[in-house]
C-alpha cells in the first residue's frame, strides 16, 4: 500500500505568502544603503546622458549599445560583434567577484547592490511616505475602504508606476542617442520598440519591486542556493551571536539575574530585528536561505542595546566559527586570508589581467584572406600564374584609413586589388571607411619562369599609410606544380 496517495489530500502543498511590513530603522547600515541606492540609481538614470567625443563619424554617447550598427560603446572602448568574448570575460569576472564577496562578507550583493534590493528599498520608502510606518500600514490594510485609504493607496501606486516607467525609460536610452530619443518619446515619434520596452520594464519594475519584493529573492533567484553551498564557517555573515544573546530574558529579569551572578543573555526578545527585516525572517534562527544580509537588523538591535545600556553588535557581521569558539571559551579570530579567498583573488587577477592585456594590445585594424577556389589558379598569356583572393580589411578607428597592400613569399610576386583607383604609390591602396570593413578582390601574380610547387605559403600585408599599423595574413599560392 502506498501512503503517498492516501494521505496528502489535506496537507497544503501551496501557501499564501504573508505580506511583510518592514519597519523603518536608522543606523550606519541604513545610511550606507541609502548612499549606495543614490549612487546606483543616479548612475543608472543619468549615465545615458553622459557624452564622450569619438570624432565626427561615431556616436558621442559614453555608454551605448548600438544594435542597428552592431557596436557597443563604453567610454573609450568600442566592441565589435566578433569581440563579444569581452562580455564573456566580464561575466566570468563578475562571477568570481561575487564568489569572493561571499567568501569575505556573505551576501553583500544581495543586501546592498542587487537591483531587486535597491528598487525594493526605493518602493518601500514611497510606501512609507504615503501609508506610514509598519504599524500604520498594517492597520491601513486591515481597515475597511475609506477615502483616506483610497487616496493613500492610489498615490502610492501612482508614484510606483512613475518610478517604474522612468526605469524603463532610462533602459531604452542605453540603446539609442539619449537626448534624441527623449525628444522623440516626448513627441510620440520614437520607434514602437522603444515604447514596448518601456512598457515591459514598467511592468517588471512595478511588479518585482512593488508587489513581489522578497518573493523574488526567496523563490525566483538561484543565488541563495548557490551561496549556501559556497559559504564556510570563516565567512563573515550577518549573525545573531547566540553565545551572547541566549538565554533570552526580559531586561528586568536579566538585571535581577546578573545581580545574583547568574548568567543572562543580552537578547530581550523585543522582536525589533524581525520588525525591520525586509524579508520577514528571524535572524536569531541562524543563517538561512531567505536572509539577504542587508544589515538592517544590526541597526535595529544596536538601537535597542544602546537604550538598555548593553554593548552593541549582538547581531553583527561575524562568523559561525567565532560563535562556536566563544562558546568554547576561545578567542574569536578573523581569517579573511583563506585558501578560497586567495584562490578567488588569484582568479580575478588572472582573468582581469588577461582582459586588460587583451584590451591594451587590441588592434584597430584586421585582415582576413580567403583563397578563391574556382579557379585555384589561372595561367596568363605570358605564362605567369595568378591566384585570386578575397581580402577583408577591418578599420576599427573613427576615421577613414588607407591601407597599402603588399605580398611576399615568392620572387617577382606582385599584387593588385580589383576596383581600387591607381595612385602614385606602386602598391594598391584600399581605403576603408571609418569604423567599418571592406572586401576587395585581390590578384596575386608570379611571373613565368619561377619554379612553383602545387602550393606554397605567401603573406599578404596591409599597412596603414598614416598610423603605421600593420596587419598580415598568410595563405597559399596555388600553381599547376607537379601535376601540369
Amino acid at each position, binding site marked *: 500500500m502506498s501512503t503517498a496517495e492516501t494521505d496528502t489530500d489535506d*496537507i497544503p502543498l501551496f501557501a499564501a505568502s504573508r505580506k511583510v511590513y518592514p519597519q523603518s530603522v536608522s543606523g550606519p547600515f541604513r545610511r550606507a544603503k541609502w548612499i549606495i541606492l543614490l549612487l546606483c540609481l543616479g548612475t543608472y538614470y543619468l549615465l545615458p546622458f553622459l557624452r564622450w567625443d569619438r570624432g565626427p563619424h561615431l556616436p558621442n554617447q559614453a555608454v551605448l549599445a548600438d544594435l542597428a550598427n552592431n557596436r557597443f560603446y563604453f567610454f573609450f572602448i568600442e566592441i565589435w560583434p566578433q569581440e563579444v568574448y569581452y562580455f564573456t570575460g566580464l561575466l566570468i569576472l563578475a562571477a568570481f567577484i561575487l564568489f569572493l564577496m561571499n567568501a569575505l562578507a556573505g551576501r553583500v550583493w544581495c543586501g546592498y547592490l542587487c537591483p531587486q534590493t535597491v528598487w525594493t528599498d526605493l518602493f518601500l520608502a514611497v510606501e512609507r511616505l504615503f501609508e506610514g510606518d509598519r504599524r500604520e500600514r498594517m492597520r491601513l490594510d486591515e481597515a475597511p475602504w475609506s477615502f483616506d485609504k483610497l487616496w493613500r493607496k492610489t498615490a502610492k501606486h501612482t508614484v510606483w508606476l512613475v518610478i517604474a516607467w522612468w526605469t524603463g525609460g532610462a533602459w531604452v536610452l542605453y540603446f539609442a542617442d539619449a537626448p534624441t530619443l527623449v525628444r522623440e518619446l516626448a513627441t510620440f515619434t520614437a520607434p514602437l520598440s522603444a515604447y514596448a520596452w518601456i512598457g515591459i520594464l514598467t511592468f517588471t519594475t512595478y511588479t518585482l519591486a512593488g508587489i513581489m519584493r522578497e518573493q523574488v529573492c526567496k523563490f525566483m533567484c538561484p543565488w541563495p542556493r548557490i551561496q549556501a553551498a559556497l559559504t564556510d564557517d570563516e565567512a563573515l555573515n550577518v549573525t545573531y551571536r547566540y553565545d551572547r544573546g541566549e538565554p533570552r530574558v526580559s531586561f528586568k529579569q536579566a538585571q535581577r539575574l546578573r545581580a545574583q551572578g547568574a548568567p543572562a543573555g543580552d537578547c530581550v526578545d523585543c522582536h525589533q530585528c524581525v520588525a525591520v527585516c525586509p524579508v520577514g525572517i528571524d535572524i536569531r534562527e541562524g543563517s538561512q536561505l531567505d536572509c539577504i544580509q542587508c544589515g538592517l537588523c544590526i541597526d535595529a538591535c544596536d538601537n535597542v542595546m544602546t537604550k538598555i545600556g548593553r554593548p552593541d553588535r549582538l547581531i553583527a557581521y561575524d562568523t559561525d566559527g567565532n560563535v562556536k569558539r566563544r562558546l568554547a571559551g576561545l578567542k574569536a579570530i578573523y581569517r579573511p586570508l583563506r585558501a578560497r579567498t586567495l584562490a578567488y583573488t588569484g582568479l580575478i587577477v588572472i582573468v582581469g589581467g588577461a582582459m586588460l592585456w587583451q584590451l591594451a594590445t587590441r588592434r584597430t585594424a584586421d585582415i582576413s584572406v580567403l583563397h578563391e577556389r574556382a*579557379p585555384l589558379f*589561372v595561367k596568363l598569356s*605570358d605564362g605567369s600564374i595568378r591566384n585570386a583572393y578575397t581580402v577583408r580589411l577591418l578599420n576599427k578607428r573613427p576615421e577613414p584609413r588607407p591601407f597599402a597592400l603588399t605580398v611576399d613569399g615568392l620572387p617577382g610576386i606582385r599584387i593588385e586589388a580589383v576596383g581600387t583607383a591607381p595612385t602614385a604609390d606602386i602598391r594598391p591602396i584600399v581605403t576603408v571607411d571609418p569604423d567599418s570593413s571592406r572586401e576587395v578582390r585581390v590578384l596575386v601574380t608570379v611571373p613565368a619562369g619561377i619554379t612553383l610547387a602545387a602550393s606554397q605559403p605567401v603573406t599578404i600585408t596591409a599597412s596603414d599609410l598614416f598610423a603605421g599599423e600593420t596587419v598580415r595574413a598568410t595563405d597559399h599560392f596555388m600553381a599547376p606544380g607537379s601535376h601540369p
Partner: protein
Amino acid sequence: MDQHHDDPKVHALHVDPVTGQATTGHEWDGIQELNTPLPRWWLGIFYATIIWSFGYWIVYPAWPLLTDATKGAFGYATRSDITVQMNELKAQRAALAAGMAEATPEQIKADPALFQIAMAQGKAAFGDNCAACHGVGGAGAKGYPNLNDDDWLWGGSLDAIRQTILHGIRVAGNDETRVSQMPAFGRDGTLKREEINAVANHVREIAGLSTEPKANLALGRKLFADNCAACHGEDGKGNKDMGAPNLTDAITLYGMDMASLTETISNSRNGVMPAWGGRLDEATVKALTVYVHSLGGGQ
C-alpha cells in the same frame, strides 16, 4: 485504507520529529519528504500559463485536419512572412537596380558602392546563368573560355564584354552577335593530311612549343601565311575584332597538343554562347559585365 485515513494518529505521524515540520506523507525506505509549500502565486502563474496556451490555438495554425490544419484567427503563416520579406528585398533591390541601370559600366566600376552591389549581383547572376559552361568562378573548361585570365577572343574591355553578353556568340538571327568562321581545312579538302600536320607543327613552333622531328616547318610556315594569317596575323598573334585567337601565348581554348590542333585545323571549332540581351534585364547585364571584367582579366 479508509480506516487508515480516519485515524487521527496518522496525521500526528506526518510531522518530522527533528525539524517539527509537516511532511508530505511520502516515504521511501524510511526517508520522508518535508512539506515546504510553494507560494500560491507560483501555482497561479502555472494555471495562468495553461490558460494563456489556449490563445495559441486561436491565434496560430494549430489543429491538424484531414487535409489541412486550422488557419488561426489572423491567417498567420510562416510562408506569408517569407513572402513579405522577399517583397521587401525585391523593393530594396529595385532601388539599387535602378541606379545600376542608369550608370554605365565605367561609372559602376568607379563608384565603390555601386561596384560592391554589381559584384554581388553579378556573382549571383553568373552562378545562375553562366556557371553551367564557364564554371562557378569563371574557371572555364576545354572549349569554354576561362574568364579569369587576360586573354580574350572578342576583347576584354567593359564595352566588349557587355557586347558579348548581350548578343552572344554565333547566335542565329542576331545581327550584332559575335561571328567568326574558321574553315574546316581537312573536312572541306582544302588541306591534305600532311599539310595539316605541317601547319599544326608551325603553330606549335610560333607558340614556343616543341615540334615533331619529321615536321616540315617550311611548308607549315607557307601554308599558314596563305590560309591562316588573314585572320590570325602573320605572327599568329590573333585579331580580337575577328575573334581570331592569339596562337602564340600560353593560353589555349581547345588545346595545343598535336591531336587537338589537328582536330581544330581539320574540322574547325564553332563554340556558341546565347545572347542574354533579351533574357536578362539591363542592370543584371551591367552587373555581369562588371563582375566578369573584375575576375582578373579586364582590360
